[in-house]
């Protein structure tokens, strides 16, 4: 039971961090947009790099949001036969499905890390801050993989009850 408790704690902690990141990104998007509109219309000037930062923040809302959606089991899926409503189906598929999903996310994390390293190597010095912001890509795919593993482990508890 200690493992299950640790997994639950970890999932809650990750969810809090991801929600914090999304909240911060939303707030920054609103502040930047407002500053941009006011600056352009009143002072005929905009924040340097503001537009680039604003667009990067889209990833900072979306990727933590995707991780939150795994924890809440709210990802878009098809399921035309409505199998999700059948407890026995849920019971037998939760572990293999979540582990398979974790494997795909791990491979995507690897791809995202390779992309980030390339970006780091070839980006010019004045735009290196953009590369740092791009770190969200491998980090978020890694978080998705962890969430799926946690879902697989926590489904054991559902089976037991």
């Amino acid at each position, binding site marked *: 039971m200690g493992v299950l408790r640790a997994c639950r704690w970890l999932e809650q902690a990750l969810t809090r961090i991801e929600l914090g990141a999304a909240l911060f990104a939303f707030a920054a998007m609103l502040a930047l947009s407002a500053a941009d509109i006011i600056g352009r219309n009143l002072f005929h000037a905009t924040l340097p790099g503001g537009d680039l930062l604003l667009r990067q923040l889209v990833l900072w809302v979306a990727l933590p949001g995707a991780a939150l959606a795994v924890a809440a089991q709210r990802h878009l*899926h098809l399921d035309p036969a*409505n199998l999700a409503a059948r407890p026995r189906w849920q019971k037998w598929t939760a572990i293999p499905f979540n582990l398979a999903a974790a494997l795909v996310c791990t491979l*995507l994390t690897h791809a995202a890390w390779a992309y980030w390293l390339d970006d780091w190597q070839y980006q010019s010095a004045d735009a290196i801050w953009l590369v740092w912001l791009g770190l969200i890509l491998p980090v978020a795919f890694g978080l998705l993989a962890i969430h799926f593993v946690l879902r697989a482990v926590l489904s054991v508890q559902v089976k037991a009850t």
Partner: protein
Amino acid sequence: MTTLLLIVLALVGMPLFIVMGAAALTATHQAQLDPALLMVEFARLAASPNLVAIPLFVLAGATLGQGGAPQRLVRFFNALMGWMPAGIAWVATVTCMVFTAFSGASGVTILALGGLLYPMLQHEHYPEKFALGLVTSGGSMGLLLPPSLAVLLYGVVAQVNIGDLFVAGLLPTLLLFVMVGGYALLRGARGASRHPFQWRELAAAARAGWADLLLPVGVIGGLAAGWLTVAELAACTAIYALVLETLIHRTLRVKALVWVAYEAATLVGSLFIILGLSMGLTNLLIDAQVPMHLLDWVSTQIKSPLEFLMWMNIALLAVGCMMDIFSAIVIVTPLLLPLAIHFGVNPVHLGIVILANLEIGYLTPPVGINLFLASQRFKQPVLTVFRATFPFLVLMMVWLLLLTYLPVLSLWHQSG
């Protein structure tokens, strides 16, 4: 074999982004490409200025939904139109349309407004079947109105001017409103009671809801006049909604705002991860010349634009039966767009037809999500909900045919 396995996994409920990610990884492996290329495409999410608008409009919709805008809208439209013959039916239709435009995912409309409108219709002696059908189908109407998430997504994927798309969606939405209201007048409102018009109630409802009502006016006006870009408009809408609910109506406190951000981020996340991975997958499909092969095949089978539109409608209705609207837009649009251009179909008209098809898909079994939501919300069997919705489904099919074969309904503003 791998493709078949992935299709089966998708059909048994594996998250769609995992299936797309697996498909993209397999395709890069088979083409002996570096999987990092997928992330090059994914990172392009941060290159589109229009994409900034989506999280901000979602935030605005979540804020308004949580803050009580649906109740204020119902009250206002009831005071304005409730006295008319079939008044509450008109009220239900217009409120659902306006709220769906803001909430993006139309299921939210059934959850947020259904509990309010369904008892209202029953109280006014509308037949139960009609009331159930109207509230369920009303949950997907309004998807063409600004600032609908579906329209924004199509605009981004098809690289079509979003302002043009929103203007193109106005007349079709008005047509659907008149058709549904007309049906209510002829069939649904038999035996329904009518209210006298009351200036005092209208004034009170307008006082409570004027700020909500200014929002769609501002969005449409801002887009039509071209004062602000779509992203700036989205930011203004989100800020306006937050100020409205926290400072003016004071319906949301800090804790509720965290919940609003959670809801918005979850929706944006589940949408954008599919979009990002599909961009990589689409690129691989283009490299493998899949759209070109499809175009060659379709060109030999289909000769006229009318025939193309008919087959496209049939295919899209089938897609709408199986897939939710956002995934369908992301997957289907890159395949259909070259075909449509080949047959001389305007991309704006194409967008309206695609979205109208997918709007109907919300009501078609087996994956008509609104049928399930309504079944849960109103505690009725899915089959009962489907039977109640069927007349509205037929009505929307007629509407779809009109939109498909009368492009002027979508392109009137471009004909001048």
